[in-house]
């Protein structure tokens, strides 16, 4: 028995000989990886550790002998591809290092690959970092025996506005097509033609010699009109081993040897993807994916990759601005601007008719900035009115965040998400709102069951083979409550979530649903599933940790607890913290628009995300201090504007949705200051030592904040809409909406090539709803309580919940909050039109 146990505890291994060196690896290891493990590099192009083996380029040929049934070594008659062959017990492998045959085979393959490869390295973007160029130098030969004309293609082929394809450079390794198929699930490029005419391409009727056909299936679903519109298409450029795929934004802009690569963290979503910011003479030229196996592996979204020009546009603020006597903003010195802001805030806080000051840091803040904003509010301004959630956010969400998220450290991780047998998504669209979260879920496809509480199966969810739990927007709570042991989908969800390791993912939209978080927590407790909160913006989890929420102190304790306030006050060295309960961001803005506040301190807030009535609050605030990177509709109303650094120009920490700290340093050395430094100077001007001048100072102070689980706020307990309300909604048309990954967000400004890959905005309705409402025409006009109307092409979506219309939240022609003044779950009126 002991022997058996021992056998069970030792992982099985395979021992073989590579180039005379004994190597022991787990079974199933490819020969090329086993060789890597002993430091032998076999040349390769198509092999990629995160893609399935293809054996497409044939560059990695090696000589192999394997023991036969009689135990005698039997050599293979021809060299074999080491990237697609598994090492077996007793195998003898000879690579180019020891085998003339392998060396000659590799040399021959290289010569064949170079036959049709153009000699345009000087104009090729890959030149200087090109695996083909490098390996042609190491394992190729300098002279070509090929004197005939090379095959040429029209170049470049525009796969999308961002991705360009030079087919003549392609060596048909199929990394891009395999990525699109296996990783992102957007199989819009594929190998076409045969033999010497083999080429990668999108659906191009000219290339394919088609006439009168159009894309069908998933490809037809792509309303952008161009076939290769994937949110992850930029990754194909990075893994292309030649310069066949290039991006329109970077094409011909620089050579690899010009660029300085600074590792950093992406700030476009809450995943905290590792990236490398590559810059030249103080200007960012491109962003590449970093390699972090625990977080984003080697992939990033196109938004993380291409949306960086926003911070170097002409409207960048470089010096403080102060509103002069004439009502116009003018440039001022730092001392003048600080004095002016300090005077104004002092008057707003302690003046004769003071009504208090609110602080809105915005959702893009780093942990350190969020900490400085909330400390500034609580210590300098004496208020709890600070909220980094610049979206619909209520007390229920805060109770959830305080009781379940804040200070909980690393919770559900990407690896947990991948390993989960069942994942249920509520108020969360993984592809649009999660980015690389989607890629992790897709990686588990086939082993994992995904349920989505949504009105329809979006394209992203379809790629996850997700099962729809039909949910009316605004009634997510009821849908969650209905999950019980039983039969049908409801029972499947219950059984699934009851499995070991199941995860319930909640997104930011659940905050706008009364009773939503209460029901989510109840469901998680009922089934034993783990809860993961995945917000959309990069800074939200950090803001929760830093206490930049009205009811939460740093460390997750409740601002209503006297003991918690005392503990934090002791660390801060102040006599006490404000008592009055704080207000959420929308309430602060609502109060400001009705004249109920004397001032506002605003960080990275975009007014176009807000309903007009709330956006007016910015204009109505008697004294407005803005900390911004670029001129915006907030700075237009500000009395004092301080320029602050974008994340590429400052150090800081993002906390990703897992609760993982993602620290980064400044990629570009500029004089731009972080928000926490500006607030520190402003506080000093007002006679208070905030103690947030550097990242190190904030980190040290955060470490001293006491964390006491007994001081957390109570878990959320709110009731959903009443039965009467639910019945009323059943009759009305309800709006479902979320932000598309690529939309009109202000951090995507200045990148028209990326904007061109966005999905074309459409309005979605079920066929039955279209029929019931008597909608005619190709365009749907949607209106709400706001004055405006949104007109979008109608996409009739089978299988969608009846009585629901879906619009993209902030896409061209569809700014839901600003135009309609409504949010997810509100009722709207619709009518059809021909144009």
């Amino acid at each position, binding site marked *: 028995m002991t022997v058996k146990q021992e056998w069970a505890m030792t992982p099985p291994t395979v021992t073989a000989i590579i180039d005379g060196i004994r190597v022991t690896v787990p079974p199933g290891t490819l020969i090329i990886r086993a060789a890597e493990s002993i430091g032998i590099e076999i040349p390769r192009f198509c092999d990629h550790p995160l893609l399935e083996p293809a054996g497409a380029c044939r560059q990695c040929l090696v000589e192999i002998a394997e023991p036969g049934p009689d135990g005698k070594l039997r050599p293979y008659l021809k060299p074999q591809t080491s990237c697609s062959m598994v090492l077996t017990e007793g195998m003898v492998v000879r690579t180019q290092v020891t085998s003339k045959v392998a060396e000659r085979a590799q040399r021959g393959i290289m010569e064949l690959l170079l036959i049709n490869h153009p000699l345009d390295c000087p104009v090729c973007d890959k030149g200087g970092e090109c695996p083909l160029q490098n390996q042609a130098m190491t394992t190729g030969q300098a002279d070509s025996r090929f004197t005939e004309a090379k095959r040429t293609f029209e*170049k470049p082929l525009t796969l999308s506005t961002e991705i360009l394809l030079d087919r003549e450079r392609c060596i048909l390794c199929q990394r891009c097509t395999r990525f699109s198929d296996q990783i992102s699930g957007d199989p819009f490029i594929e190998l076409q033609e045969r033999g010497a005419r083999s080429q990668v391409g999108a659906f191009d009727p000219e290339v394919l010699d088609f006439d009168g056909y159009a894309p069908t299936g998933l490809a037809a679903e792509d309303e952008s009109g161009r076939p290769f519109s994937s949110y992850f298409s930029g990754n194909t450029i990075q893994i292309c081993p030649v310069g066949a795929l290039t991006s329109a934004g970077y094409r*011909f802009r620089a050579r690899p040897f010009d660029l300085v690569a600074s590792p950093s963290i992406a700030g476009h979503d809450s995943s905290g993807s590792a990236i490398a910011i590559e810059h030249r003479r103080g200007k960012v030229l491109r962003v590449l994916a970093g390699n972090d196996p625990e977080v984003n592996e080697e992939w990033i979204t196109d938004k993380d990759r291409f949306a960086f020009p926003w911070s170097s546009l002409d409207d960048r603020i470089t010096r403080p601005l102060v509103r002069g006597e004439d009502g116009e903003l003018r440039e001022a010195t730092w001392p003048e601007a600080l004095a002016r802001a300090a005077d104004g805030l002092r008057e707003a806080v302690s003046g004769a008719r003071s009504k208090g000051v609110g602080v809105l840091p915005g959702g893009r803040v780093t942990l350190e900035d969020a900490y400085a904003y909330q400390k500034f509010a609580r210590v300098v301004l004496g208020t709890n009115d600070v909220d980094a959630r610049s979206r619909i956010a209520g007390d229920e969400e805060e109770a959830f965040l305080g009781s379940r998220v804040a200070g909980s450290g690393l919770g559900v991780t990407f690896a947990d998400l991948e390993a989960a047998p069942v994942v249920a998504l509520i108020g969360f669209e993984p592809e649009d709102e999660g980015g690389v979260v989607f890629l992790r879920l897709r990686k588990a496809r086939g082993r994992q069951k995904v349920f989505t509480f949504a009105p329809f199966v979006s394209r992203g969810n379809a790629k996850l083979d997700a099962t729809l739990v039909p949910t009316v927007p605004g009634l997510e709570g009821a849908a969650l409550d209905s999950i019980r042991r039983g039969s049908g989908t409801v029972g499947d969800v219950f059984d699934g979530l009851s499995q070991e390791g199941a995860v319930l993912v909640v997104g930011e939209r659940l905050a706008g649903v009364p009773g939503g978080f209460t029901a989510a927590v109840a469901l998680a407790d009922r089934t034993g599933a783990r809860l993961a909160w995945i917000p959309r913006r990069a800074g939200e989890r950090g803001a929760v940790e830093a206490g930049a929420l009205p009811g939460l102190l740093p460390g997750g304790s409740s601002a209503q607890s006297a003991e918690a306030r005392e503990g934090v006050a002791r660390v801060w060295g102040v006599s006490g913290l404000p008592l009055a309960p704080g207000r959420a961001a929308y309430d602060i803005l609502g109060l400001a628009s009705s004249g109920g506040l004397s001032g506002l301190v605003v960080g990275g807030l975009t007014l176009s995300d807000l309903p007009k009535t709330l956006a007016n609050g910015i204009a109505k605030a008697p004294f407005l201090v803005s900390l911004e990177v670029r001129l915006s509709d907030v700075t237009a109303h500000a009395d004092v504007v301080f320029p602050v650094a974008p994340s590429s120009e400052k150090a800081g920490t993002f906390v990703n949705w897992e609760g993982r700290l993602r620290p980064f340093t400044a990629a570009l050395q500029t004089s731009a200051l972080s928000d926490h430094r500006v607030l520190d100077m402003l506080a000093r001007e007002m006679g208070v030592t905030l103690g947030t001048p550097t990242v190190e100072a904030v980190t040290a102070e955060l470490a001293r904040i006491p964390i006491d689980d007994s001081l957390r706020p109570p878990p959320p307990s709110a009731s959903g809409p009443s039965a009467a309300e639910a019945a009323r909604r059943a009759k009305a048309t309800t709006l479902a909406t979320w932000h598309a990954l690529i939309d009109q967000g202000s951090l995507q400004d200045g990148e028209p090539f990326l904007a061109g890959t966005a999905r074309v905005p459409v309005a979605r309705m079920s066929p039955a709803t279209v029929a019931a409402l008597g909608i005619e025409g190709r365009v749907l006009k949607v209106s709400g309580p706001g004055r405006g109307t949104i007109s979008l092409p109608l996409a009739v979506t089978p299988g969608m919940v009846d009585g629901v219309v879906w619009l993209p939240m902030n896409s061209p022609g569809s700014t839901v909050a600003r135009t309609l003044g409504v949010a997810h779950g509100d009722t709207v009126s619709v009518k059809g039109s021909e144009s």
Partner: protein
Amino acid sequence: MTRADVPFVSNLPRKGAAGRFFAPVAGFGVTMRNIFRRPKTEQYPRQKLPTEPRYHGRHQLNRHPDGLEKCIGCELCAWACPADAIYVEADSNTPEAQYSPGERYGSVYQINYLRCIFCGLCIEACPTRALTMTNDYELQGPTREGLIYEKQDLLAPLAPGMLLAPHPMVPGTTDADYYRGDVTQAVRKQIDWVRENRPDDPSLPEVHHG
């Protein structure tokens, strides 16, 4: 015995009697020999002598025979430069602004002559023979900025038959035709294009009336 106690002994061969006699004026021998020869002094800047033909002087960015630039902005010159004196930025040619044959051209081209050591590695690196060196050695100026030569300072003058870029390539040709030397001068269509888009361009040929 210390070093100071060792008497000095010269290694030079001891001179004979005549040698010792003329020793005080022997140094004037070179002077006396040259005093009757033609002086080599150059009267620069009044008189400028031609350099050797392959002298490494100021750089030049050459043009194709129709006036398009040869530089494709590949930066190999900048890469080869041991003194980091060259700065290049490339950009895409467009139908509206075609500066060089093919897709890519050098939009920014700077050589810093405060750094350049005239080694010529850059012209060896140039894949299109766009960059060569002239015999011009007169590089001086009162400011640092002035010694950073920009693209317009380095571009070769227009030879007959050339048109100032940007203008389209010769119709029906590819960049390969340019490199093979099949393009010999600007053609009618290119002249018409420049006349339409830049009527005042000085490189346009005179219009002969009547």
